[in-house]
């Protein structure tokens, strides 16, 4: 963590802080509550600029399915406001406080900056799909907007997408406007006990390829919470009549693939909350944690190729959480497995020496990397925003 923390309480003050740093050529570590400092590469900066002072929901129109909040608003505050009106965040972003050992909850701006999505990503889309508008401060201290506060908008280049998942390297997000949806009245899951991961993904694919609107599809490792397994878990979120009907149909359809059972509302919610937070991965504090994204049928092969014992598959098998020794050798195996499967990887959590020593994200093809450097030069010409966070020297 970097020494001084600046936490401006207005967008103007945020812009002034960035402008001053730009004039002085001083790099800034950008964060919300700092709950994911151990994500990606360590940032070398004497000062940290936090958005934690920029809080509050600025607009919430449940009938228009739109919510705007300042970047530093804690996730629980946003979720509570939505729950009061029976709505929720579509991408089901995880807090991951257990994984990162942070005492504070993530901020909504931080979740957008890291584009973190939970189990519902497979059906409802990622955080990046629901960012309808953004206000941000560029690396020169200039405030700019993209998008707006409506659900359909193709006016101009979509800088919301560019900033989402850019980890604060292209702008400091000051405020976000998100599409939200009614929360389901009920939920239920079907569990299929399978012989191995490949059979599990087959069950998940069958469920996702059914007409029943499966909204979560994960593979729980054998032995987690003393359960038999592996267990393919498929979620339905609907009105209660539909949950009953669709889980019954799924049980029929999937019966040939393994022993099926129904997981009722409360237990289903608890299981998916655990999947969302990657608890079944069973990562110990010393483990490094990786997130690999591949096409679902490649998931089991990735797990096998890495030789790491701890794995959790979500998103139908396409999101592979892995945990294991924090060594360059283990990292190299994960990278090789992800690339052989045509996918992408993130070194999600690791002790600082490893994070600083290896590529935590895949390298980009040269033409794209060149475009990336030019885009970075447009939005952060002095290179002061989170330098080195995503890639060494950028």
């Amino acid at each position, binding site marked *: 963590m970097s020494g001084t923390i600046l936490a401006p309480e207005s967008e103007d003050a945020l812009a002034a802080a960035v402008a001053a740093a730009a004039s002085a050529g001083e790099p800034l570590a950008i964060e919300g509550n700092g709950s994911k400092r151990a994500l990606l590469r360590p940032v070398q900066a004497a000062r940290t600029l936090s958005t934690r002072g920029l809080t509050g929901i600025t607009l919430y*129109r*449940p*009938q*228009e399915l*739109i919510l705007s909040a300042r970047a530093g608003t804690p996730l629980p505050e946003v979720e509570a406001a939505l729950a009061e009106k029976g709505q929720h965040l579509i991408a089901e972003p995880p807090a991951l406080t257990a994984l990162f050992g942070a005492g504070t909850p993530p901020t909504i701006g931080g979740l957008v900056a890291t*584009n973190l999505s939970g189990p519902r*990503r*497979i059906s409802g*889309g990622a955080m*990046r*799909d629901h960012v309808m508008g953004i206000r941000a401060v560029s690396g020169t201290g*200039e405030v*700019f*907007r993209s998008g707006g*506060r*409506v*659900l*359909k*908008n*193709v*006016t*101009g*280049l*979509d*800088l*919301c*997408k*560019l900033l*989402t*998942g*850019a980890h604060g390297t292209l702008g400091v997000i000051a405020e976000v406007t998100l599409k939200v*949806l*009614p929360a389901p*009245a009920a939920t239920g899951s079907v569990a299929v006990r399978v012989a191995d991961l490949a059979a599990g993904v*087959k069950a998940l*694919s069958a469920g*996702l*390829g*059914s*007409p029943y609107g499966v909204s979560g599809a994960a593979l729980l490792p054998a032995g987690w919470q003393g359960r038999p397994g592996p267990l393919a878990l498929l979620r339905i979120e609907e*009105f209660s009549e*539909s949950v009953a*009907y669709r889980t019954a149909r799924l049980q029929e359809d999937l019966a040939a693939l393994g022993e099926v059972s129904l997981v009722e509302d409360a237990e289903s919610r608890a299981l998916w909350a655990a999947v969302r937070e990657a608890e079944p991965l069973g990562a110990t504090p010393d483990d490094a944690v990786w997130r690999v*994204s591949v*096409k*679902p049928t490649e998931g089991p092969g990735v797990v096998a190729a890495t030789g790491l014992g701890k794995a959790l598959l979500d998103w139908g098998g*396409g*999101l592979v959480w892995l945990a294991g020794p924090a060594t360059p050798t283990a990292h190299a195996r994960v990278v090789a497995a992800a690339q052989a499967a*045509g*996918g*992408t990887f993130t070194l999600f959590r690791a002790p600082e020496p490893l994070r600083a020593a290896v590529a935590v*994200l*895949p390298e980009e093809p040269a*033409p*794209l990397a060149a475009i990336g450097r*030019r*885009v970075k*030069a*447009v939005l952060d010409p002095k290179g002061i925003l989170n330098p080195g966070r*995503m890639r060494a020297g950028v």
Partner: protein
Amino acid sequence: MIRLPDPKAGVLARREEIIAALRGLVPGGPLGEGVISEPLRLKPYETDGLSAYRQPPLAVVLPQTTQQVADVLRYCHANGIRVVPRGAGTSLSGGALPLEDAVVIGLMRMNRILEVDYANRLAVVEAGVTNLGITAEVASDGFFYAPDPSSQLACMIGGNVMMNSGGAHCLKYGVTANNLLGLTFVTIEGEVVRIGGEHLDAAGYDWLGLITGSEGQLGIVTEVTVRILRAAEGQRAMLAAFKGTEIAGQAVDAIIGSGIIPVALEFMDRPCIHACEAFAHAGYPLDAEAMLIIEVEGSVEEQDLLLGKLKDICARFDPISLKVAQTAEESLAIWKGRKGAFGAVGRISPDYLCMDGTIPTGELPFVLKRIGEMSAEYGLQVANVFHAGDGNLHPLIMFDANNPESFHKAEAFGADILKLCVEVGGCLTGEHGVGVEKRDLMGVQFTRDELRLQRAIKSAFDPAWLLNPAKVFPLEDNPVLQHAA
């Protein structure tokens, strides 16, 4: 008429040489010539779905492979030649309008479906495959490609990516950007790069998201990896007609507030109802001021349950009529008028402008009232269809193309509507794109500095502004285009 940048005299002077070079890069084949240059045969390419604007290009190239696209771009880049990408030419914002000194790169011959993978729910297709062509390929197995712009029979997936196309069902299924996994992308230098892949959420900058909807400003897309979805068991529609637009708007709020997200929620105003009824004889109530078409999905029992709840909600708003389809045929009958809306308006007035602003849904009654007043002031009829769930408004302004004054009035009326959309918190375009049509209104939505920033991002991809120039960004204030000639 919209202003286009001065053609580059040097390029025009070298026309024959350029055409010969392009023929070398894209030779003819069984499908015909690879390069079109005769004035008469350039005619079909001089305009797109915004037919009020016309400009024949220098030449049209019809590549059949990504490599040919790359070769053409590398040549054009080396020679400072502007290019305009084109799919089916259905853009309603003039996105594919040529320039006199530009080479149009038409992707319609790249129309192969390369891969369908049900286990991973994806398809890899070339840019010239039609939107409906993807669904047609997978429909017999119960799957579909979700975004459904009304031009879906003709429009091509490459164009959909470039414009981030929507449709009537995006309230539930999202727009193009939400249904993509990867692209094959060719830079202006002719470099071929893979963006994304067959997996979700590539780590690193979201180039896929930035390129989607970039209107051909950043590069050319030759292949697209789309998500395909299993279709629901069935769907059924209902119709609800109301005495006023305000009360219909309240019904929409109540529906969303109930926790039901219909798969489609379409709103038509009185002029639109009348036009559609005269055209399609769908049985629409002619005494209504506003009408909703609401569609739900699921098993028959689930449809009954949801339609029952929706009927109860609508009944609270003093409806003139409520009609719940009992069969698939009755659903089609309800949709028949709406789907024919553009044709119906075309029957009343052969020429119309289809606008495309988005507004916060709560502003609908006010916006419709103001559009009504403006219609009287301009002396031009307007009919409104509206994707009510997501706030995307399509006013159809009727005019007489043979009367230049009528056309200019229609343009001014359209601009006023879009300004109104921005004033009430919305935007200039929900799904048609900026193109040339709304280019000069960009200053209404964005500050000069914000536009400068967006232009600089384009420059990061295309420093010499050879890719579809004169679209999206106002010509004023643009040093590259001013001095390009």
